[in-house]
């Protein structure tokens, strides 16, 4: 895994306007950490950011001609990341700030699609700054807000001093319903230790092994059909590799637009290795991840975050993959 060491981690910072992204950026840059960070900002930045290594970008979303119908990438990121990799001094991390109304998918997909970007950098984590006061309204009014929560590895729930305890619980429940895996950190003025948001390696396949869905009992009622929700499945019966590949690739091909993120650890009949994957819409990273730990039960776990999940017969599809 020598290659991994050479890849500069990229943290994507999302969140609605006014949530506190710029406050967080300025904290990251002014804290005495002795690290060299480049920051890619968009032109609608809320206030000035003071750093040597600020790069202005336009959020340019490009369609790829790779046959993947929902595959869009951030063209400006490809250009800027490729440029930054020519620097003489090595960067410790790169932080990409997105505009309040940005969909995080094209940013994440850029790291799957562009070989140069994938060779030299890696998507570290998506950190979403959310305003504890306004998030509920924003989630109702803007699908972008839902997507930013759905894609998040960390949700920084900011301005908690401005809501009461029950209000805070309501917001947290709402976040968990969309994305049960995001780590929620309560803050005021984005006061968070940097090691909780940088260098998390959240997109590595190794981290998928930590997935422990604990929301199987949750009911799936929700107000609108296009709400983002999550579903997870566990099976102690080994899966048939061919059946699974068949079902899953068809599923992503036909429903990939509605499936925002997937993660899974799979136990295939006749295979001694654990298979791990994670995906963004139709794009996926997958690999065997070593042997199952001795003395531990083997089981398959599969998680979906997306829209209209209930219409996809996911449970039935997954059940059909079990080895007879």
């Amino acid at each position: 895994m020598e290659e991994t060491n050479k890849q500069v981690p990229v943290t994507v910072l999302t969140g609605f306007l006014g949530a506190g992204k710029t406050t967080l950026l300025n904290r990251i840059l002014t804290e005495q950490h002795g690290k060299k960070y480049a920051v890619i900002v968009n032109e609608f930045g809320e206030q000035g950011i003071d750093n040597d290594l600020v790069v202005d970008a336009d959020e340019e979303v490009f369609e790829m001609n790779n046959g993947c119908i929902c595959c869009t990438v951030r063209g400006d990121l490809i250009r800027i990341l490729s440029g930054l990799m020519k620097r003489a001094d090595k960067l410790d991390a790169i932080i990409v700030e997105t505009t309040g109304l940005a969909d995080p998918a094209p940013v994440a997909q850029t790291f799957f699609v562009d070989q140069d970007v994938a060779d030299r950098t890696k998507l570290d984590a998506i950190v979403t700054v959310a305003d504890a006061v306004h998030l509920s309204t924003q989630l109702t009014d803007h699908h972008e807000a839902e997507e930013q929560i759905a894609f998040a590895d960390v949700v920084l729930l900011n301005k908690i001093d401005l809501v009461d305890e029950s209000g805070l619980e309501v917001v947290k429940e709402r976040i968990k319903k969309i994305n049960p895996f995001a780590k929620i950190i309560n803050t005021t003025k984005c006061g968070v230790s940097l090691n909780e948001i940088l260098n998390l390696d959240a997109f590595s396949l190794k981290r998928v092994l930590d997935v422990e869905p604990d929301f199987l009992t949750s009911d799936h009622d929700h107000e609108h059909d296009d709400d983002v929700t999550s579903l997870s499945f566990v099976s102690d019966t080994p899966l048939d590799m061919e059946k699974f590949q068949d079902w899953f690739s068809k599923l992503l091909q036909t429903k990939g637009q509605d499936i925002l993120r997937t993660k899974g650890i799979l136990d295939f009949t006749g295979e001694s290795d654990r298979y791990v994957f994670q995906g963004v819409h139709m794009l996926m990273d997958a690999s065997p991840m070593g042997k199952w730990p001795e003395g531990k039960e083997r089981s398959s776990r599969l998680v979906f975050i997306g829209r209209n999940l209930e219409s996809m017969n996911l449970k039935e599809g997954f059940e059909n993959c079990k080895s007879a």
Partner: protein
Amino acid sequence: MKADTSQFPELDKTKFEQRGTDFKLGIPVTNAVTVGNSIAVGFGDGTVRIFTSGESSEPIKAHKGIVLCMSKDGDNILTGGDDGRFLNISLDGKISEIGNFGTRWVDHVAANNGSLVCSSGNIVYLWSPNHKEPKLFEHNSTIGGIAFDTKGRRLAVSRYGGVTLWKKDYSNKWNSSELNWKGSHNKVIFSPDGKYLVTSMQENQLHFWRLKDKIDSAMSGYGAKIKSFAFVDDSKYLATSGAKEAVCWPFDGDGPVGREPICLPYVGNKLVTFVEPFPNENAILTGLSDGSVFLSEIEKASNTIIIRSFTEFEVSAIAVTKDCSHLLIGDMGGNILWTSIWDEEKK
């Protein structure tokens, strides 16, 4: 501690490496451009060095971070950097600022007959000779590349969705027309005979337009993005990187449609990352991802010689002096080979 090893040339060194000078600078080489019998090199620390036979090359501090792009304007060098500056540098190292765009990078520069052009974001800035203020040409997306034709009357600007072709009419007014093809277009060049326009794309393919009738077509089948391509021997072939062979498309006659490219293989099965035409010959210098560089005759692949052995770093620049006496090779690991091409004794 220094030991004199010159009397024990390592056996695996090529004759060019033995004859030339090896600089291990450790700073990624981003660009190289021929200016007469000198070669200017841009680096990933914002410096430029000028290599001239018999002279030492001192670093010129041009940009703050990275020299993103380079071109030449007569006897001067043009550079664009991540500090948002568009600079003119003379061969004796004098720097003058042509434009400054702050936190916006200067991604591409070009010049023709005293007209200077750079792009920053989605705007092309053109300084006509003796004009202090630039003309602005706005486009629908960030610009992937710019190129003048040989005469300087046409300026091609590649972008998302195709190329915008600016033409100067005889009252010196610039008018644009669009050449559209879905996808994101990066580097763009004219064929030296002015008949074709070629772009490399975000996908692993090239696209070309025949300008007289706007016929266009893709050149695909590559395993990687095509970062380097150039016309060879006037406009007879288009040599391209992006595969494990140097792929050379025929552009004589009616062009490449329906014809097979010539593929030049190299030992080691590595990706070709840089191609540079050898002046006035039907031959190319090919740089690979492991740092090795070869000189090949396109129509006679058996006439291939090794110029530099591997360094483990991808070749990112090759240039030959105008008089064909010297060549320079640079890579992403900051290694530079500067060597005479011909054996001094045979001269």
